[in-house]
């Protein structure tokens, strides 16, 4: 589902333009106080235009109608920004939703027979059967059976996954396909109430609520708007004192230019785009607030396996004891592992083949495989020609060797200690009760992960590794991967306690989990991301669901949250900084006819009062569509520390915000002066 829709997909633009007009409805506009006042200004301008047809005192009707049109465009541009953000989010959500429309389901009846029913009519608690080749009709939990499932429709990942009843991998998603076997699935949501449905509603605006920071910013912007209302209203008696008539067109233009229309027009688009970006990262959020909170996260709890290390341990080295040939040792290792289906076993063969160029022996027919048990803590093979090869934990093989009356070589013992202290796991191999050597297994830390942790550290996020390993191994891996802290031999309640402790210090904690036993911690965490493959309980407890089941997704989510806030902050700064230039365009234009001395303020050398005012309002209008791409994509987050980031953004959007309109208004004035 990783679609790369163009920023302005033609079909979306079309619906957005229609929406832009529909959103002119004052009942909708009032939610955005800044743009609402612009709409009122536009209406007054419409009246003034008509009035000026018969009265010359308010200026020429043509000029007034142009101002009216530019103001109307300003409102429409702002509406369009919101509409296109909504449309993009909706398109993304629709493509997810399409996968689950009108899928027939074989619903199990009480008498044991089944009835085919459309997915739209499935109720919570219904049980349906899926066989090989069936599309799963809706979200649910497997209550019986095991199946391989193709989830590529949701995740874009083509490799099939296994889902089975019980345990932490029991959830199935509507729209995915059963590749083999048969499962019974219990429906977990009412129609129209799945996470995806909720997300779509959030994007569409019906149930979208403003996030805390958005509310605070709206208040601030409303107060700026009020200041400028005061400035413009009082200007009338000031001008009367100075015997300077000011036209209503000029006053309204000044007002619209001064109020923060740029950020006001883009504010809701930025919020929607934030959720949309989350959705594009295949994360379903239950509220916009969760995305915003993600940007504030101080502590990130990450599972070791799959996040920090690649899957399981891998064999990295063969260490034969003194007096044993490498070739013979490797041969024994391979033989003992050929029947070993565990990832460790496979990695031993892989290492032998690649590093030692060993030719893989064929297992002699009649060999007996010894499987691993918790008591023996070893596995191996007995061949018909009398070779008894064992590999296993150090102490179990040592007992085994010593019981047979043989001496356990001291160099192996040293090697074992050495490996353990380096965070590895030693596997000792023996043949006919003689120790041959040690295989070193190591956790493979994901390439690039320590750079990501470094990046998180610069953002001020503390990373914590959660692992079932013993503290020694955990410490080693934690250091190597560059995480700040670790929880070793972790039990589910350890996570919970860690989260509570951090929260007691005032920190915000995010975690990812999938199991039912993760659910309390997911609920406790400020941002809890449940894997889509996880249990229903986990998904209910968290406030986000990751469709890709990718444990590193948390890092992305934090960045999306930060980007959201940064985009709001920088565009506010830009919007306010713009006013400096607009003042220098409009104020001299207002007074220059009656107070010629004030032409000293016309530092841009604008053509005439009319062209100056018109250029300022045109600039004010077109800056909105120019910034739509930035609002939708978000201002890039750079992990360079807060002060450096402030310096950077202050320079680009603060200084840039002061300079850009001087250039823009001057250029527009040059163009306008050709006509006026």
């Amino acid at each position: 589902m990783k679609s790369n829709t163009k920023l302005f997909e033609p079909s979306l633009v079309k619906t957005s333009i229609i929406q832009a007009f529909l959103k002119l409805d004052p009942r909708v506009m009032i939610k955005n106080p800044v743009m609402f006042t612009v709409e009122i200004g536009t209406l007054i301008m419409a009246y003034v235009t008509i009035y000026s047809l018969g009265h010359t005192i308010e200026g020429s009707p043509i000029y007034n109608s142009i101002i009216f049109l530019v103001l109307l465009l300003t409102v429409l541009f702002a509406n369009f920004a919101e509409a296109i953000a909504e449309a993009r989010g909706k398109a993304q959500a629709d493509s997810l939703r399409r996968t689950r429309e009108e899928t027939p389901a074989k619903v199990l009846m009480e008498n044991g027979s089944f009835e085919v029913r459309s997915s739209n009519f499935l109720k919570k608690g219904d049980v349906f059967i899926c066989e090989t080749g069936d599309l799963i009709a809706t979200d649910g939990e497997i209550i019986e059976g095991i199946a391989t499932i193709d989830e590529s429709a949701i995740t874009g990942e083509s490799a099939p996954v296994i889902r089975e009843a019980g345990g932490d991998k029991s959830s199935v998603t509507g729209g995915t396909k059963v590749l083999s076997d048969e499962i019974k699935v219990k429906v977990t949501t009412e129609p129209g109430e799945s996470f995806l449905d909720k997300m779509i509603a959030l994007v569409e605006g019906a149930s979208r609520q403003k996030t805390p920071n958005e509310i605070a910013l709206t208040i601030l912007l409303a107060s700026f708007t009020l200041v400028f209302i005061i400035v413009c209203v009082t200007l009338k008696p000031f001008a009367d004192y100075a015997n300077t008539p000011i036209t209503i067109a000029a006053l309204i233009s000044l007002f619209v230019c001064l109020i923060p229309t740029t950020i006001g027009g883009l504010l809701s688009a930025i919020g929607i785009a934030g959720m949309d970006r989350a959705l594009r990262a295949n994360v379903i959020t239950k509220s916009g607030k969760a995305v915003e909170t993600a940007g504030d996260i101080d502590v990130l709890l990450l599972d070791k396996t799959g996040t920090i290390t690649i899957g399981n341990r891998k064999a990295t080295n063969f260490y034969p004891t003194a007096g044993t040939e490498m070739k013979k040792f490797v041969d024994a290792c391979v033989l003992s592992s050929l029947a070993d289906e565990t990832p460790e076993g496979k990695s031993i063969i892989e290492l032998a083949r690649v590093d030692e160029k060993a030719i893989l022996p064929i297992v002699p027919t009649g060999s007996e495989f010894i499987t691993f048990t918790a008591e023996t803590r070893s596995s191996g093979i007995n061949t018909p020609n009398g070779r008894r090869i064992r590999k296993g934990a150090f102490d179990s093989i040592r007992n085994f060797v010593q019981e047979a009356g043989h001496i356990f070589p001291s160099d192996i013992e040293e090697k074992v200690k050495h490996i353990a202290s380096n965070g590895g796991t030693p596997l000792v191999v023996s043949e006919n009760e003689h120790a041959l050597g040690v295989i070193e297994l190591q956790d493979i830390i994901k390439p690039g992960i320590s750079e990501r942790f470094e990046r998180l550290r610069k953002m001020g996020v503390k990373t914590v590794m959660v692992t079932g390993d013993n503290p020694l191994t955990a410490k080693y891996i934690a250091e190597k991967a560059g995480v700040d802290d670790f929880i070793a031999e972790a039990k589910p309640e350890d996570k919970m306690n860690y989260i509570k402790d951090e929260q007691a210090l005032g920190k915000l904690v995010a975690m990812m989990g999938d199991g039912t036993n993760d659910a309390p911690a997911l609920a406790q965490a400020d941002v809890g991301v449940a894997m889509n493959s996880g249990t229903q309980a986990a998904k209910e407890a968290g406030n986000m669901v990751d469709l890709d089941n990718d444990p590193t997704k948390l890092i992305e989510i934090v960045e999306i949250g930060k980007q959201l806030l940064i985009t709001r902050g920088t565009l506010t700064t830009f919007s306010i900084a713009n006013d400096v230039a607009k003042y220098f365009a409009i104020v001299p234009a207002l007074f220059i006819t009656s107070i010629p001395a004030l032409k000293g303020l016309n530092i841009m050398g604008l053509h005439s009062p009319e062209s100056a005012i018109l250029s300022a309002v045109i600039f004010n209008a077109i800056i909105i569509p120019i910034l739509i791409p930035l609002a939708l994509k978000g201002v890039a987050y750079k992990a360079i520390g807060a002060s450096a980031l402030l310096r950077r953004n202050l320079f680009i959007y603060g200084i840039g915000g002061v300079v850009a309109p001087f250039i823009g208004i001057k250029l527009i004035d040059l163009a306008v002066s050709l006509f006026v």
Partner: protein
Amino acid sequence: MNTEFIGIIATFFITVAIAIPLGKYLAKVFAGEKVWTDFLKPIETLIYKLSGINVKEQMDWKKHLKVLLLINSIWIIYGFFILLYQDKLPFNPDGNPGMPADLAFNTIISFVANCNLQHYSGETGVSYLTQQFVLMFLQFVSAATGIAAAIVLFKAFREKTATNLGNFWEFFVRSITRLLLPLSVVVALILTFNGTPASYEGKDQFISLQGDTINVSRGPAAQMIAIKHLGTNGGGYFGANSSHPFENPNYLTNMVEMIAQTIIPMAMVICFGYFIRRKKLGYTIFGVMTIGMLLLMIPTLHSELGGNPQLAKMGIAQHTGAMEGKEVRFGPAATAYWSTLTTVISTGSVNGMHDSTMPLTGLWQLLGMMVNGFYGGCGVGILNYFIYLIIAVFISGLMVGRTPEFLGHKVEAREVKIASIITLLSPFLILAGTAISTYVFTAHGDVAWSTEPKAWLNNPSFHGFSEMLYEVTSSNANNGSGFEGLSDNNAFWNVLTGIIIFLGRFLPIIGPVAIAGLLAKKKFIPESAGTLKTDTKTFALMTFAVIMVLNALSYFPALALGPIAEYFTMLK
């Protein structure tokens, strides 16, 4: 010229050299740590006992504001009636009359609010009783009110999380016993030894060489002039304020008065840093304020020392700069220095005529009062600055991708709402006040009031506009200086500025204290690499930008029609 510069540079450095240790001392005093003035404790204990105050009682921010407003309203009522009936009360050797109600209303609010806008003249308008027991008394307690309110705010950030912010009476009493009173004694003695009167006798009389009989007003002036500056009040004993030879006899007293009015506002900033154990933050704020003050002072010096271009056009040499409205014993540099400080700080005393300064000087004076936070008044300066700080924290917090936080406390909708209202208040009062005045002047110039509105202004046109704008701005800033040239002692101006002074005083105290109280209650968030630090140069720059942009955007059109238009017209 050189000695004039040396004079003001020396004054500035002496001020800083006193203010820094004073700030550290204040931090200790209000934290209850051991200081050398602890020998005054018995006096404080006696005051508490006499007034039945339990200083052990801990107050939250609401309780603090409640008692602050309560005691201030008592002073308003008390003073109002004395002003009305001062002619019937003792200590009135010159037989001055009681005040009319509108003037009494204006005067009492003005002095309770630490503004000291004076629509009367000290020589003829008030009795010695009023001078001493109303006006001078209020100069002490209004300054102490501001300092105590600031300490409440400081207290909110001293501990990680706090609901109780100390005892208001303790802060209030200590600001008087440990700070205002001892310093006033020192300054008053210096003034007395230099010739400022401190007697209770009525007018003196002499016959001049021309044979005219001249009455010379005097009275208990030295003590009032000391606290008028130390408490950033600015209300003069005599009508001509600190340009009067009795109030400010020579260059030395001029220096002392300039130093006196600046040390407490500066010290409060330093005190903030030490009190909350983040002295770097204190010095950073101090840096921003100093740069802001210098950016107003340097162009002021430039335009005053440069002289009047109109006179220059006539070929008149002005070696000493623009001397109109200035005292020869101080010169233009010391007058320019004073005029900047008295407007950035809310003192509002003058040692020259602001009405006569160059148009651009008027612009800088107005801007200083509009900002009202470059040092600012006793205690309230840092409260005003705090609002700018919250706005800066909010915008820059978003810019670095985190919910904004100040000193470990999240700044959320409620705090932003309060800060927004306070930010809105100044433009509202200043612009609406000026708009009403200009409207009455233009549309109802000949209405039958005791002073017809069309007769308000000494100067027509842009300068007249500045006169009205200045009067309203000075009221809102609780500055109290006048541009003069405006007939302000009439019902219209007395009532209008009285209301503006009142709102401009108490709302900007309530707002910051409320924000601080709300923030203090929130959970403390420890600092991380993602936290925006507020004591860095970058953030200082951000705050400065917020201050300049907010004020420029609010007042640019008004300033364009006043001093800026006058400036460009003069150049023509």
